[in-house]
């Protein structure tokens, strides 16, 4: 414990450029506490439009916790407390007048384990459109569902059985269904929390291609355990350690020429 504390104390500020020119989201001095225990220490980070930013780090480094701050998913955990500022297009999403429900429609989320609703494939994708009243009639709803499934690269596989339960799909298909479901509400940012950790390599490759395509329209923040995946899909990479953001920068730079010793240790596989 003391050793960890010593490492924690040794991390002072973040190496690399945290800010970008056109930030979609920008976080400043974010602290997160679970009851008395502090999980995130003063993190500053920007997420740019049309960019995939990967968050990597050893287990328990707080990267998932940080990701869940970005659409206030941590609100559902009663003991969790967030301080600092998280701006989306210049508005603080934790301001008193901000509605987390509307926020989450703008900042979508894909979870670690595929979690389709126990409903039909169609209803899964239509769910968000229905609750937000995005479609005026059945034809518009069909368009949204088909369009989202196509963009998630799932349509061809499921077009003949949209009435089948979403849970009947394979793991990779379920995860693409979840991605289709979140892009059906036209979010501006998509957060992905280890979206491939429960999938086989082929399904993973499929999702990674999809992430790269989605970058055209969305800002994407992805938490991953796999450094190869971070290297493949992201333009920028942020390395978290013990709740602090140690280093952030261009993905190629981070993987070829890490500045911080901890980053280097992690990337070269000395721990993690």
């Amino acid at each position: 414990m003391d050793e960890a504390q010593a490492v924690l104390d040794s991390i002072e500020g973040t190496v690399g450029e945290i800010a970008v020119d056109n930030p979609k989201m920008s976080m400043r001095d974010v602290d997160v506490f679970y009851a008395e225990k502090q999980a995130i220490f003063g993190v500053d980070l920007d997420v740019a439009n049309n960019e995939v930013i990967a968050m990597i780090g050893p287990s328990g480094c707080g990267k998932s916790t940080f990701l869940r701050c970005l659409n206030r998913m941590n609100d559902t955990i009663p003991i969790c407390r967030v301080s600092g500022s998280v701006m989306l297009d210049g508005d603080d999403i934790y301001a008193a007048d901000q509605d987390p429900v509307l926020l989450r429609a703008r900042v979508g989320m894909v979870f670690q384990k595929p979690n389709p609703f126990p409903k039909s494939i169609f209803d899964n994708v239509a769910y968000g459109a229905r609750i937000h009243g995005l479609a005026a009639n059945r034809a518009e709803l069909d368009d949204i569902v088909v369009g989202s499934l196509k963009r998630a690269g799932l349509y061809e596989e499921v077009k003949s059985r949209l009435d089948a339960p979403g849970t009947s799909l394979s793991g990779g298909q379920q995860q693409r269904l979840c991605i289709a479901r979140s892009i059906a509400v036209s979010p501006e940012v998509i957060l992905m929390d280890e979206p491939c950790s429960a999938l086989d390599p082929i399904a993973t490759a499929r999702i990674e291609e999809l992430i790269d395509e989605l970058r055209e329209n969305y800002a994407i923040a992805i938490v991953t355990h796999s450094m190869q995946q971070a290297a493949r899909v992201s333009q920028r990479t942020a390395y978290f350690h013990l709740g602090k953001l140690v280093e952030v920068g261009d993905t190629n730079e981070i993987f070829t020429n890490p500045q911080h010793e901890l980053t280097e240790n992690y990337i070269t596989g000395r721990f993690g």
Partner: protein
Amino acid sequence: MQSNTLLLVILALAVVSYFFARHKAFGVLKSNGSVSARHSLPAHYGYLLALWCAIPALAILLGWKLFEPGVINGMLVDSLPQQVVDGGDSRIGLYTNDINNLVEAGGIESIADADKQAAAQKLVSLRSASRLVLTVLVLAALLVSLLVGLRHMQPQTQARVIVEKFIKVILVSCASIAILTTMGIVLSVLFESIRFFQQVGFWEFVTGSKWSPQTAIRADQVGSSGSFGAIPLFTGTMLISVIALIVAVPLGLMSAIYLAEYASARTRSIVKPLLEILAGIPTVVYGFFAALTVAPAIRSMGESIGLSVSSESALAAGAVMGIMIIPFVSSLSDDVITSVPQSIRDASFGLGATQAETIRKVVLPAALPGIVSSVLLAASRAIGETMIVVMAAGLAANLTANPLEAVTTVTVQIVTLLTGDQEFESAKTLAAFALGLMLFVATLLLNVIALYTVRRYREQYD
């Protein structure tokens, strides 16, 4: 030896053989050196020898105890004087009963009747002979099976497999006992009902609209023709159950949703047990609460707005019954709602759904099968409930859908048919079994329909 002593001997020997075999197996396995080569644990050998030792002896003891009274009685009857045997079965029955009582009371020498004294002595000698034979048999069985069992105690014996099989046999027989008992009850109700339907037509019973089970006991009695139309009873049961469910399902389900989704852990830990206390109150307490508090209140309320309310009403009984079954709905539904995985809640929140939308569109559909079974359980309680109805809804078999009138239910009629001095052969008494059978069939149908519906509409999560 007395059979209790025998039982103790068997058990003691089983325990001893367990420890003996275990100890021996331990020694053998150790001397063999290779623990990995052994097939079973020493304890398995212990159990195996104990079973070998106990089971044949126990079987003999049990079988003997089952058949002993019949056999001894038969031998006693054979030795009875001719004039008793000529008197027929009932005479013989009375006579042997008498002798049994005399033997139990003791003092055979002082019996006046010589025949009876002889019979009593015969009975005593038969019994002591039986006891002696049993003792010898059991001890012999113990000895033989122990020897055979010891011969089986070889390292290559698959003791583990045999013991595991024996455990399975025990489990299967426990399950069979429950099933056989149920079948026995159903069959006995069925046969009594068939006797009833020989006296009263089936269609008259099922479709008749008048229930008045008083039949004439003597030929000269008037005014008690007896009519067995069960429809008023079933409508009464349905009326009261429906009222109860109308009260219990919304209240129970809403409290379950509150407890599972909105209440803090602290509130939940206090409120849930409090709600469950409702299920622990004896129904007779609900009954007098319904009869003395709720029924008069409904009556005065109804009369204040110009309705005629009978002092015993279906509404009073149904409403109180509804309160009683709230915990069946709330507690079970709470459990199923809580067990809906957090991941699909997160998915819904992540798409910008509100908590209410998430509950309505994701959580409740996923929890539907459990909720339906909780409602079914509550409905079964409502249909089977008797005490509240006796006290608050009356005994009058009115065919009505008006909840303000007195009605009666199937279970209440079964109680009134079977209590008091009754002649067992009369249609009136047998009607209780027919009612029971119909109730059983109705509840079964309800369950089947509900299960089918649930399977059709469920949203299954994994």
